[in-house]
């Protein structure tokens, strides 16, 4: 019974998130000098979820995130993982105590994100597609 309730609940949540997801398109950007030309989805997820701390070529990767309550962040994770951002938050709060893995560095807005990427060779960040500048390199497009 309990199990069934849980399943029903998760189904409802899934439906809701799918509804929200189609709102915006995102791009993942890195420093212009970063040799990485493109990333696959799996690598991207692993970098953002702390499983991997390097680009496929071995260079250190420093992912950048938005503030916890940011609408952009909510939409990005929904679009990338297909799960509500709350679960991502829960994931981080769960693994934070293990001490080995750190969540991406949060930035207050798109401008500061762009600034961080422009100034950091190892940086990797996501931004809405319309905010892309020529000072950063797009390595992944999230179109849905």
């Amino acid at each position: 019974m309990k199990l069934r309730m849980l399943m029903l609940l998760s189904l409802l949540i899934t439906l809701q998130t799918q509804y929200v997801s189609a709102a915006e398109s995102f791009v993942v950007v890195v420093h212009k000098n970063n040799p990485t030309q493109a990333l696959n989805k799996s690598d991207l997820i692993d970098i953002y979820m702390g499983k991997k701390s390097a680009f496929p070529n071995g260079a250190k990767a420093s992912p950048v995130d938005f503030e916890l309550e940011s609408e952009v962040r909510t939409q990005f994770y929904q679009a990338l993982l297909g799960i509500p951002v709350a679960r991502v938050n829960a994931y981080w709060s769960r693994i934070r105590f293990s001490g080995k893995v750190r969540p991406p560095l949060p930035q207050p807005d798109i401008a500061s994100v762009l600034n961080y990427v422009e100034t950091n060779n190892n940086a990797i960040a996501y931004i809405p597609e319309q905010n892309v500048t020529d000072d950063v390199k797009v390595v992944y497009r999230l179109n849905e």
Partner: protein
Amino acid sequence: MNKSGLLFRVGLGVGGTAVIVALLCTYLFYGFTFQQEIEASEQQANSLFVTVKESAASAAYLGEQGVDLARELVAGLSNNELIAAAAMEFSGLTVSSGEVGQADAVAERFAIYSIFQPDQKIGELLLFLDEAHIQQRAESLARSSAFAMLFLAFLITLLVILAAYWLVTRPLTSLANHLHDIEPGTQERLAVPDFHNDSELGSLVGDINDLLAKVQLQLNEERELRNQIQSLERKFRLMFQNSVSPIVLADIKGNVLLHNQAFERLLNALGLSEQQQHGPMLCNLFASPTAMLNTIMPALKSNNVALGEFKLKTPAEQAGIWVQMVVSSFKSDEAQEYQQITLHDISSQHEELKALSIQAQYDPLTELLNRHGLENKMDEKISKRDVFTLVLFDLNWFKQVNDQYGHAAGDSMLKYVADGIRNTLEDEDIGGRWGGDEFVLLINDSCRQRIEVTCQRLLDFIIQPYYLQQFDTHVQIGASMGAAIFPNDGIDIKHLVARADKAMYRAKGYKSRDNHEDFLIFATDALSTTGDE
């Protein structure tokens, strides 16, 4: 408590059944509970997995970096009382806690899928259920249910015993005690126990009371009958015991089966001891057994009743005892033949006769009237003009017996004939000894037939073989008779005797030992024949 008692049996039956059912139920319940507990545990394990699914997925996702988290997780899981051990397998790593690999542990395997890519299986969570714990829980449940059921069984048994006691045993015991105290044949009856008016117990009481009533009735009837029989028996015994005459019941061999006090007194008087055997017809008691037997036996055979007067064998110094003997034979219900013998003492009458004989009326040997006595009697009759027949007879072959065996033998023969005369004649008839071996009968009738019958009977008696004890031999004599009727054949003694004598001598011509019809000749016939000559 009585081991065969109803209560004990009911208690044993109900209690035993209840306990068996309770144990059986407990056994089945235990199996069922155990299965259910296992299912419940599996569900609980499932729930546990759902609870930790996200954390497990997070740890498995991180691979080596997630080992700490995984360790923490399995440690937490194995703390659960249901879980004996827990393990996680991911990225080629195994993190476990508790005693993994126990023999009786059931492993529940759950697949871990990636949170971020739900189609990717990234590891497995293994939960080892603590079967011992489950079993313990099932057992504890079964035990409490068993206790509950046993208590219920005990309660039911107790209630059934109580009900049986109140409804059956107590009234039954009281009935049984009451019935035990009731004397059969009295007015007492059983009371129907309370609330049992329409029950089986009630109808049982009714039936018992009916039975008691019947028993009472029958007992009363029987008592009445017994009283009647007893009083009758008392009267008979009085009659039998107080009878002045000796009475004896004997079988045909002469064994005395029953006798009265008078018989005992008689034996005393005869100087005999009390014993069972006195010979057939008590013949050992008689002075002349043969005469008695020859008189009684033929009569008894034809009549079933016989009587005669005989002298008993008394000690020498005592006066003679004369008795009238009455014998009747009868058959019992079992077809056994018995004889009742009654002896009436007629000694006093014979005393009189003896006294008369002293006056020369009687012949001392035969104790019959002598010639003088007979003449007196005839005179009496003639003077009264009473019709009578004079039969004169003398014995044939008597002289030979006398010559061969002596006078004593002859005298005993004469006594034997005298006995025959006494027992052949009717009461009103008179017999006497005329002299020598000549005898006279004075029969109070002139009817030829009656005279012939009487004489025939006498002859039959006389011609029976006579046992001479002294010589141990039998002798046989005969008789020839002549009859003269008063007043037809003569009006005085002289003539009558002469006529009878003549007729007798005629009969002598036919003398024979056989029962010849011409042993008796009437004077009238003799005269006519003489006339013809």
